[in-house]
């Protein structure tokens, strides 16, 4: 691995703290590692409470079937079983259905029929894990199988079975139609274009598959009526409100604790039936109840991602000026519409699909349909479907390059937005905050040695060897979002933060977001250090506990640094302002006479006269007489409502070799130049990028959740759903440019999902480029050896269906 030039990371070399950490931005080893390295992380399945019971869920073997009867008597007779709960039990509690995040409902336990394989049918609470599983075998369910709808392209056929018979008057599987952009302007651009290219493509259903599966421990105190829930979730405050709404428990009596989370990637945003069932189980038994799903349950029943069938069209001039992009999407949402995204955007942020290019017109139309598959759709580090958008436009640009016979790098360079066009309002309404796109692409091409690679490729082609070079350029939109435009279930997407500086100058920062490995305990302490001059080792970051943190919407969509990070900066500045008044009182001068140098207010022109933030902390808690209206103590709180999204971007280049005999793809190199604005902790930022790049290789080459025509999930274990290991990943070559966000208080943009969003098309473009001698213009992911081989035969497969 070559870490290449990371010039201009946005900050000057900071001073070092007594512990040798940067007094602000810079590489700092992670605070959280101290426990993780010793095996002392505390994850949900590590929670042990006195008298705790264990539970398990009986799931449907069918994708679509009517439930004729459920006999639980044998299970109830098991000596270790404490409760057996079915849909009928829940109906009595008005809990059989719960709201989804997309204004639909989802069955907690099936009552009328099952709608996907793996759907929750019954719930058992027992003395131990093994007994709970044993009891599932004793439940007798009689099903009457119904024809399943497994092919999204046939979901709207007149003869397709109607899945959502629970919705009154529902006679088809249609969920919504939604469009963005200007259809008429787009039609006009296409009508007058010299070149029009069309390409159908599928972004297949994938699953985030964090190594820790989902789980919960629910403990209802029968005396106080307080419900405490430990759960794997990325949004504890939103969960609390939802529990209050779903279960009718008063919100002030609910405490949600997200302890350490073993990876989220969007899989742990929503509330799953198992979480609700554990609460019910605790209420019924009067004991704490643990529920932890197994891997198959995780893959088959929790939030999947993507499943977008896209028909793309691109219009251009003969010399390669791109004029317009148009796309029709068929979105497979599974059996319940449970996508997690801001309310106004049923297709998430997909309509950022104009990407990084200066177009005359753009239009998209998205139709959502029900199928007999697990619900979900917006998950897996996708930035609310920007993953699909980037894939669409970056593949279309390559398809255009193929048809025009021009170099894909040159074509991009010719059409990228220019720096002077920022802030730029896209044809679908996004206001990109800042960027220098050509600089990032040039840098990636330099690191790659692009011209030499093309030369090597030409030589190899002469010899019949298959080598491919793929480029993608992405524009992200993260940090949702301005509450005027963005809410989830009516909850505006602003984040609170509270900062308390204790008398001895040590601080506690409380944030609403929830780390799943992103290193918030370190990065957010660095933000406080940067703003206040308190060493980062003296700042404790408190998160993941709704009783002890302010309200906010959580960590997904790369929103932690853009929203909660901004809140941390602003709250630190408020404390700094308060400290100025206290310092002025102590120095018997006007606050206006003071100036701030790192960690200290001092008299302008007389720097000897001053007080450090630590001295001010003690003074503000002491007997110093403070001016009228200043209450003392050194703390502040804030709610940060972002004025706009931030727009990270980057240029990626992938180099592959393909074995012509087996179709096996070897990713030889991957070059990633990311611009996420100012970098608070470059080490952590790089780590985030590395992880996303591996996800891109996985999605492009290995991962897909397909189904056979009977509705069987073909990706229900790690034996079937293949994730990249260290052997499939190359040594990542990273580089950076820095274009600060003009509206974020730290000039940061967020980076958590950039690489997952940007990397899949680079890998796919590289493989397709390698197959050019075979006349291959497109083949859908995952480009497994089989799919590559089929593409070479001119008959690439539908990767969402079983191979026949």
């Amino acid at each position: 691995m070559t870490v290449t030039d990371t010039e201009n990371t946005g900050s000057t070399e900071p001073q070092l703290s007594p512990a040798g950490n940067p007094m602000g931005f810079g590489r700092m080893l992670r605070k959280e590692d101290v426990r993780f390295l010793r095996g002392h992380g505390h994850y949900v399945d590590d929670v042990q409470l006195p008298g705790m019971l264990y539970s398990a869920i009986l799931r449907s073997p069918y994708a679509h079937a009517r439930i004729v009867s459920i006999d639980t008597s044998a299970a109830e007779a098991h000596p270790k079983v404490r409760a057996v709960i079915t849909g009928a039990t829940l109906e009595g509690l008005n809990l059989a259905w719960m709201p989804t995040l997309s204004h639909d409902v989802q069955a907690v336990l099936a009552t009328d029929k099952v709608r996907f394989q793996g759907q929750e049918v019954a719930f058992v609470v027992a003395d131990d894990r093994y007994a709970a599983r044993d009891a599932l075998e004793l439940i007798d369910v009689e099903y009457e199988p119904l024809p399943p709808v497994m092919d999204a392209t046939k979901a709207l056929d007149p003869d397709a079975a109607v899945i959502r018979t629970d919705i009154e008057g529902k006679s088809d599987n249609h969920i919504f139609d939604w469009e963005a952009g200007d259809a008429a302007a787009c039609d006009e651009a296409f009508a007058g274009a010299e070149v029009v290219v069309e390409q159908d493509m599928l972004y297949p259903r994938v699953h985030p598959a964090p190594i820790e599966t989902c789980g919960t421990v629910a403990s209802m105190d029968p005396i106080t009526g307080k419900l405490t829930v430990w759960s794997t979730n990325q949004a504890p405050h939103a969960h609390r409100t939802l529990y209050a709404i779903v279960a009718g428990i008063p919100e002030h009596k609910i405490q949600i604790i997200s302890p350490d989370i073993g990876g989220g990637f969007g899989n742990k945003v929503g509330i799953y039936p198992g979480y609700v069932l554990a609460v019910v189980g605790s209420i019924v038994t009067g004991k704490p109840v643990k529920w932890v799903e197994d891997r198959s349950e995780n893959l088959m029943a929790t939030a999947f991602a993507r499943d977008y069938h896209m028909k793309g069209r691109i219009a251009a001039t003969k010399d390669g000026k791109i004029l317009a992009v148009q796309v029709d999407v068929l979105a497979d949402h599974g059996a319940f519409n449970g996508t997690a995204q801001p309310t106004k955007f049923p297709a998430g942020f997909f309509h950022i699909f104009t990407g990084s290019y200066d177009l005359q017109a753009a239009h998209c139309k998205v139709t959502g349909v029900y199928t007999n598959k697990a619900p979900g759709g917006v998950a897996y580090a996708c930035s609310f479907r920007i993953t699909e958008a980037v894939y669409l436009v970056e593949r279309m640009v390559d398809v255009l390059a193929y048809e025009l016979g021009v170099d894909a790098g040159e074509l991009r360079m010719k059409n990228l937005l220019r720096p002077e066009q920022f802030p730029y309002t896209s044809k679908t309404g996004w206001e990109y905050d800042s960027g220098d796109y050509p600089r990032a692409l040039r840098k990636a091409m330099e690191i790659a040695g692009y011209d030499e690679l093309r030369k090597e490729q030409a030589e190899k082609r002469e010899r019949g060897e298959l080598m491919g070079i793929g480029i993608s350029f992405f524009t992200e939109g993260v940090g949702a979002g301005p509450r005027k435009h963005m809410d989830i279930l009516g909850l505006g997407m602003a984040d609170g933060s509270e900062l308390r500086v204790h008398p001895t100058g040590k601080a506690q920062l409380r944030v609403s977001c929830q780390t799943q490995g992103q290193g918030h305990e370190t990065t957010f302490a660095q933000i406080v250090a940067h703003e206040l001059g308190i060493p980062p080792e003296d700042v404790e970051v408190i998160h993941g506990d709704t009783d002890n943190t302010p309200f906010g919407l959580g960590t997904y969509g790369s929103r932690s640094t853009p929203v909660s990070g901004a809140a941390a900066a602003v709250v630190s500045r408020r404390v700094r302002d308060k400290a100025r008044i206290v310092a002025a009182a102590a120095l018997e001068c006007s606050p206006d006479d003071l100036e701030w140098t790192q960690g200290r207010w001092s008299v302008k022109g007389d720097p000897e006269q001053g007080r450090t933030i630590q001295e001010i902390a003690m003074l503000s808690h002491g007997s110093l007489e403070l001016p009228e209206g200043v209450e003392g103590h050194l703390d502040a709180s804030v709610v940060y409502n972002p004025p706009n999204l931030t727009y990270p971007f980057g240029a990626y280049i992938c180099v592959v070799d393909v074995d012509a005999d087996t179709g096996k793809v070897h990713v030889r190199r991957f070059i990633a130049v990311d611009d996420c604005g100012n970098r608070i902790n470059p080490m952590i930022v790089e780590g985030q990028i590395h992880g996303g790049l591996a996800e891109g290789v996985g999605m492009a080459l290995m991962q897909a959740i397909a189904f056979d025509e009977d509705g069987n999930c073909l990706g229900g274990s790690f034996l079937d759903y293949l994730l990249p290991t260290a052997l499939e990943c190359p040594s990542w070559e990273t580089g950076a440019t820095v274009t600060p966000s003009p509206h974020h208080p730290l000039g940061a943009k967020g980076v958590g999902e950039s690489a997952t969003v940007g990397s899949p098309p680079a890998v796919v473009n590289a493989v397709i480029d390698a197959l050019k001698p075979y006349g291959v213009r497109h083949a859908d992911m995952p480009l497994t050896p089989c799919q590559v081989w089929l593409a070479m035969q001119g008959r690439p497969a539908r990767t969402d269906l079983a191979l026949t």
Partner: protein
Amino acid sequence: MQVTVTVNGEEHTSEVEPRLLLVHYLRDHLGLTGTHWGCDTTNCGACTVWLDGVPVKSCTVLTAMASGHEVRTVESLEVDGVLDPVQQGFMQEHGLQCGFCTPGMMMTARRLLDDVPDPSEQQIREGISGNLCRCTGYENIVRAVRWAAEHPATEEAPA
């Protein structure tokens, strides 16, 4: 049935069900929750421990199979307040993010370094290919193992 398992040098005698998986014995019976469970099918490696010095996936080992044998878990890596070079390497090179795969990954890495003290990048990648990580893209794990190879007897623990 009664089993006697030596875990991190300490002998434990317990009454267990014959079907009890080693990972559950370690976690639920002995409270050694540093060993994680992730997949059930020996694919992910989050549950990797040593059985008589050999890394095994404890989700597919019965406790009974470990009876009379020696098990070593992540909790044993730190000795007298000094972190193992592998632990230090993971910290220095940012070889972990969520931390869930980390204990298994480190147990695999420790064995690899015992067998191959100066491994190449390719040897490291092959050595850890039975352990999945979803966060790091493996790059910094490879560097962490290299760090440990280059600092085999570091005395000081990082802060």
